[in-house]
């Protein structure tokens, strides 16, 4: 049968470039496992479109290694069965994945990735649990590190001080609980106490949480949830006269929120951390991308998913170029190439270092603030910086 074993690895093209899965003489196929119809639809859409934009630009510029890039996209709608199915489907035909939304699903296939498949996967999730694999590479600071940086921002601004209580409202699951680990670490270092409030993605009304935090007397709140929860939290806090700063992780904001009732409150005392500059920033990288993206997708708004997606695709592209240079476009070759990338992506505010699989590609965080006047709705209030407490923090013992 067709499945009968035939050795096809180690093939080389006329230029002596070794090729493997997902690479032909004229084409490099990359996979993207995204969510455009499920709970992370807004992220998935921006990331995917940005990556498609990158593919288009790259191909226009002649491709990589004389090959055109092709992106095979599968929308799993945040359904584990579909996600795993899509991974299984694409894996034999692609070189690697520029995107894999849903860290639980990435964890689910991680043993396959590390054990046999060995293709690079760049998940669009910033959980520390994903760090440590040679092939699954998180781009940017993980949630715990980001949270430590955010708390540092509050300490820095003298908004909180030793002995204070801070509230942490977080999602059940990977994202929230990883962020919580960060805030606990930061609190320990700075002599703070964390008041926990765990919520589920279906909770949209933060009234009870605000009541509880107010009662506990917290001086600031960290939110590691979705945009809606952040909007409700900030809105309710403002309306009930609970005037404390609120900081959120990069997933706790969407520019659409500015048009809601909470819009005004969000622009007052709410801060978001991320490992890239905001898309509306005047720096060259974001500005150019914003322009190109708006030209390509005039109907869609700009948000930070655009940068995240584009950045991830460029990292993959960079690895491909290096692999091409060393004449090895196999998965192994690309992985080796990625491990040599040390200082990439500074156009978007932060340089990433991929040489150590056990560490996130950066520990820096840009702190931003919602602002209705900038495209993408965010402006920088503190440029990329690492909190001392985040320097050496590792989640894994």
């Amino acid at each position, binding site marked *: 049968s067709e499945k009968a074993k035939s050795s096809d690895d180690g093939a080389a093209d006329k230029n002596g470039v070794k090729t493997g899965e997902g690479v032909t003489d004229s084409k490099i196929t990359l996979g993207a496992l995204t969510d455009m119809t499920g709970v992370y639809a807004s992220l998935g859409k921006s990331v995917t479109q940005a990556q498609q934009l990158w593919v288009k630009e790259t191909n226009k510029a002649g491709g990589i290694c004389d090959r055109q890039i092709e992106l095979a996209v*599968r929308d799993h709608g945040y359904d*584990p069965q579909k996600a795993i199915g899509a991974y299984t489907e694409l894996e034999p035909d692609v070189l690697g994945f520029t995107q894999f939304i849903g860290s639980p699903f990435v964890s689910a296939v991680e043993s396959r990735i590390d054990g046999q498949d060995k293709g690079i996967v760049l998940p669009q999730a910033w959980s520390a649990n994903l760090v440590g694999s040679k092939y699954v590479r998180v781009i940017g600071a993980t949630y715990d590190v980001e949270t430590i940086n955010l708390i540092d921002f509050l300490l820095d601004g003298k908004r909180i001080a030793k002995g204070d209580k801070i509230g942490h409202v977080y999602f059940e699951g990977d994202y929230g609980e990883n962020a919580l680990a960060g805030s606990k670490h930061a609190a320990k270092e700075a002599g703070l106490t964390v008041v926990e409030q765990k919520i589920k993605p279906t909770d949209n009304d933060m009234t009870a949480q605000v009541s509880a935090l107010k009662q506990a007397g917290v001086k600031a709140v960290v939110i590691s949830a979705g945009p809606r929860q952040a909007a409700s939290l900030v809105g309710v806090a403002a309306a009930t006269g609970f005037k404390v700063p609120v900081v959120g992780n990069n997933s706790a904001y969407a520019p659409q929120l500015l048009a809601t009732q909470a819009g005004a409150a969000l622009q007052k005392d709410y801060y978001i951390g991320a490992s890239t500059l905001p898309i509306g920033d005047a720096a060259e990288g974001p500005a150019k991308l914003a322009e190109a993206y708006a030209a390509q997708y005039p109907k869609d708004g700009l948000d930070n998913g655009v940068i995240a997606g584009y950045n991830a695709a460029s990292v993959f592209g960079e690895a491909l170029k290096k692999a091409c240079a060393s004449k090895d476009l196999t998965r192994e070759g690309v992985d080796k190439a990625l491990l040599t990338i040390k200082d990439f992506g500074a156009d978007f505010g932060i340089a990433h270092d991929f040489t150590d699989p056990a560490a996130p590609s950066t520990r820096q965080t840009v702190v931003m603030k919602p602002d209705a006047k900038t495209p993408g709705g965010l402006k920088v209030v503190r440029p990329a910086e690492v909190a001392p407490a985040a320097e050496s923090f590792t*989640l894994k013992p």
Partner: protein
Amino acid sequence: MSEAVKDAPAAAPATATPFTDRLRRPAPYLWLTGSVLLLLFPFYLDRFWLQAGLFAMAAAIGAIGLNLLTGSTGQLSMGHAFFLAVGAYGYCILAGESGTENGHALTGLGLPTWLAAVLAVLLAGAAGGLFSPIAGRLSGAYLGIATLALIFIGQHVLFNADSLTGGFNGRPVPPLSLFGLTFDDAEVVVAAVPFQSSEKLWYLGLAALLAGGLFARGVLRGRPGRALNAIRDHRIAAGVMGVPVARYRAGVFVLSSMYAGLAGVLLALVFQRTVPEYFGMILSLEYLAMIVIGGLGSVAGAVIGAAFVSLLPQVLTHYSDSLPLVSAPGTGGIAPGEASRYLYGAAVVAVVLFLPGGLARLKNPGEKKK
């Protein structure tokens, strides 16, 4: 009796006896061809299709169980996913080793995997038994929504009992070993075809499905099946006929939970890692859709419905590039995920509308439901 009376009635419907029933089934060679095809698939299909098939088999086992409960006894359950979770996690906990993963301590009993699989199924049954004060007393919509509570309780436990479930991280699933054969990704070459976990599990899944199907058929055609139907049709009369209603209701709940448990074990083996997100309400609803699409109260219906519901999205996504109407993700238009939901929603509505007995009726329109 006079001769005239013995004349068969003009419009005699299908007889109920198993013997004649057997005669009415499609010719044996059809079965034979089907079986041979099923047995050969691992030699030709790639992992994606095998895995999709395995998902469908697991779903079919679970759906058979749910059909015993909802179709045959009239007890609506929306908590099926909970018992799937008990099976899946039960297996992991029983078979897994204690240790730490990602900094979390994980408890495991390290039992032989085959024993763990059996115990996991029993554990799911026991979980169903714990629910029997409710399952024995409630029916209809009330039971349906009461069982929904199981989903929420289940998810809560899955996320919070870290040391057992691994929390949001889930747990790795130890590969099953049976008679010295391990169902893992280590390649075994059979007829020049490399057999990995999917290929090996394929046969395990087939065997489990066949056994589960035959067992359910036996139950339905036998004394318990009649008692269950009687409870569905007229609870008081069933009691007066000597059927202990609460005990049977609880009993079938346990049995259906065990089917779910078995499905859960198989799913876990296919997934190779348990993820708490999977065992949510949507999954329960999908199972309900399966049995309605396939045909309430029938084993074949459950299998057909399960195949339909579980394969449809995978197939649509797979062929999303070449299907009209459906556009590739990110290019605007209807995404394959959406298209498959439209189709699946419409299928639920349409099947019930045009085939009141479910898809199973298509095969054999005259056949009595069972």
